[in-house]
């Protein structure tokens, strides 16, 4: 009966494992008055946001709206879009709310009438330029592509995007892949149509042995470890690495940092619009805006707090994304980038 004993042991082990990690979904008994006007149920969020940041965001949201469970699919913008497209082909999109760094793709969805027009509560004081397409999608905080460096390896801080081509750091420069990261895709799409840069700039990066990581997270991490000396990365990650104590700092390039739109929107076919809207409303609350700042982001609500180490936006130059060029040349940008940086060697 050894085998029976084995089966028993294993079942107990598995039962313990499950019991240990299964979170019993205890519905907090809230007073009836509060519970009645608050949405409940589940929504699914597809996002390219940093996993740990968005998890904290959801936890904070649940403090205010405890009845709504937010399930998260997180990957790079490229893979999030791939998943959405696969689901569109299958005939059923699972996401209720989407939030990633490809405004051109949002425009495509809007053109297919897949997005819900909704003006979130408290967002009326946010400048119009951050509400897109008749409130079908909007900005909840700002991110910029900047140049960041490892303070142990770089003694004199860089000043320009072109410092990434400095042969002194050959092989120790990095950037995220335009095929995976939406922020990187926007950067490439904007720079190649800018006479100051063009594809030439990317050839020079290639000559300087630039390492293309998948996402910004990996770039920031490898900058912190010292695998990279100098990188293109999103600003909040550089800031949060610095605040964690890693040897990282960032600069605002003289040519300007690129403001990367990262809109959030609700899909029309959501089966829980109330919960989805509550989630987006939450984004504009003081609590959410402060949390963004804590995570290193620059907020979108005027007069809100400012993250430690963030520059004064009014005095600095920001580049805007060349949406017109990107929209017209989407495939070509991707395939040229893949040819230069993604092609097997």
């Amino acid at each position, binding site marked *: 009966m*050894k*085998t029976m*004993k*084995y*089966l028993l*042991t*294993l079942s107990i*082990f598995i039962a313990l*494992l*499950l019991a240990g*990690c*299964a*979170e019993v979904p205890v519905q907090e008994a809230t007073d009836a008055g509060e519970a009645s006007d608050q949405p409940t149920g589940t929504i*699914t969020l597809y996002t390219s946001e*940093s*996993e*740990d940041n968005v*998890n*904290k965001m959801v936890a904070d949201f649940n403090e205010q709206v405890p009845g709504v469970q937010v*399930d*998260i*699919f*997180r*990957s790079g913008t490229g*893979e999030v*879009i*791939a998943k959405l497209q*696969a*689901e569109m082909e*299958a*005939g*059923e999109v*699972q996401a209720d709310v989407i939030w990633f760094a490809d405004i051109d793709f949002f425009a495509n969805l809007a053109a297919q009438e897949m997005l819900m027009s909704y003006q979130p509560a408290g967002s009326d004081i946010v400048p119009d330029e951050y509400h897109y397409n008749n409130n079908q999608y909007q900005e909840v905080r700002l991110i910029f592509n900047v140049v960041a460096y*490892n303070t142990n390896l770089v003694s004199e801080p860089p000043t320009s995007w072109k410092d990434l081509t400095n042969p002194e750091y050959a092989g120790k420069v990095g950037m995220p892949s335009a*095929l995976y990261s939406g922020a990187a895709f926007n950067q490439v799409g904007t720079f190649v149509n800018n006479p100051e840069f063009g594809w030439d700039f990317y050839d020079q990066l290639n000559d300087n042995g630039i*390492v*293309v*990581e*998948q*996402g910004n*997270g*990996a*770039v*920031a*991490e*490898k900058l*912190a*470890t*010292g695998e990279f000396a100098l990188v293109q990365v999103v600003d909040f990650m550089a800031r949060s*690495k610095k605040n964690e104590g*890693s*040897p990282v700092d960032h600069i605002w390039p003289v040519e300007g940092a690129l403001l990367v739109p990262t809109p959030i929107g609700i899909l029309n076919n959501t089966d829980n619009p109330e919960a989805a809207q509550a989630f987006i409303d939450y984004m504009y609350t003081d609590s959410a805006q402060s949390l963004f700042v804590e995570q290193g982001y620059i907020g979108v609500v005027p007069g809100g707090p400012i993250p430690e180490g963030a520059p004064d936006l009014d005095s600095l130059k920001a580049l805007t994304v060349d949406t017109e060029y990107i929209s017209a040349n*989407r*495939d070509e940008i*991707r395939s040229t980038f893949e040819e230069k*940086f*993604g*092609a*097997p*060697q």
Partner: protein
Amino acid sequence: MAEATRRPPFLTRSRFTNSGRKLIYLIGGLIFALLAALILYPSLNLVLNSFLADGRLSLANYADFLTDTSTYVVLYNSLFVSLLGTLGATALGLFIAWLIARTDVPFKSFWRAIVIVPYLIPPFIGAIAWSYLLGPVGYINKLYMALSGNSDPLFVIYGKWGIILVMILYSYPIAYMISLGPLEKMNPTLEEAGRMSGAGILRVMRDISIPLVGPSIWGGALLIFMSLMANFGIPAVLGFPARFFVLTTKIYLTILNFDKANNLQVAAALSMTLVVVAVIAMQIQRKVQQGRSYAILSGKESQPQLVQLGKLKYAALGFLTIVFIVTVLAPLLAILLTSLTRATGVPLTWENLSLRHYEDLIFNVPKVRRALINSTLLAVLSATTIVFISMVISYLLIRIKIRGGQMIETLILLPYAIPGTIVALAMILAFLKPLPIINYSLYNTFWILYVAYLTRFLTFGVRSINAAFEQLHVSLEEAARISGADVVTTFKDIVVPLVRTNVFAGWFLAFMPAFTELTLSILLFSVNNETLGVVVFGLHQEGKVNLTAALALLIIIIVLILNIVTRRVTRGRLGF
């Protein structure tokens, strides 16, 4: 189904009563329908899709990848790393097996337990661990740079050589396990003759011992080659940073590139190259196993005299120690240290050690908990289903000897023989659109993972239980039948108890790889249906180095404990 319009196609003996025959016919039919739905249909659909462009039959997908020079580069890359990896793994596994089976190297039982451990570590986790050791700023490279004052790393693991190295380290146990048995049973007089004629130890090993276990070595090498060609995790972890791609990673990227027209269909066409390689390898393996017998091996249970190593004993001991350090100790230590480091980039000091990543893992990353539950459920459910189906299939194959058995066996082996990336693609293509009649899409559900695991690991169950039926004499069942028991009673009271050990073996063999599965899951998972492999890989890709390490260590510990418990409880009959 057309009922009994023809003679039951797979009944050849009339050992059964009419009702018994009908029952077997029914169960056999159901099983075959299941195999047809889960394996045959997705396979044929995959082939069909490879010829579909914009919904029409065409060769465009083949033209697309055949005219793309990068296809040949990745094909060459795949063959290059797999061949060198196979060579290295086979040589290493064989040498270790020879040391343990045929020489008087000390502490044998310790080494027996240890050299198997790399087999239990999921290869992609091994690859991640090695990136902590030999990445550009890995522990070994940092140590080297600090000691030598050199600012360039010693060796960077990214790229083909690193992939080959890690492939060798995590697949040599297959060669070891396969050659250990034959080496132990080998007729020792041949070696003794060699020694007496004045040949050195290495010469005896090279010219006598190894050729004698030739067929096993060939079989093992082919198995390793197929698994390396199919491997996704190692080239994904170590190849992406160096822009080095192999067929599996290229197919993966093609599947995800929805901007490309007909991307799934092009990926299907591209997959055919790997299917062809896998089928050729399967055929060679069959030939090798049929053509050469083990006639040179002595069947008697002689206690073979061991090769006396003499002073070389210490060299052998040192060698095994190095293997242990390189394959197990160093990677585990690297994972442990990384998981305990407070933040990336900070120097390794006592103050910088913290448990915060474990805290994060348990409390702040909900998908970790979900993945633990999902992977456990998936592994338990699929392994259990597999042994139930396997019992029936094996009974039909070995006892009833149904017609077309060979075909069914091939069909069952198929999802394991072809790379997981392709199985996943076939599943997407087959189950993306809602199923007819019930109008339910398996895609994006837990069940597509279950179905994929079920087909992929079914062969473990069937092979394991086949072996039991082959060893058991049919007379026991006949005795029951003569005493008046019907088919069901015979099966329940005689067959099941007799094959129980192998049932558990099959369950364990399916459970272990399912628990840490990555290749299928990464393409088939969805929200709430994440698996452990998916979460580790995702955290790694996202650059959450410390968190990845913490979870990787947790998985390794669970796997090792499961294995130890299994060994203890079954007194070494199961487990590695």
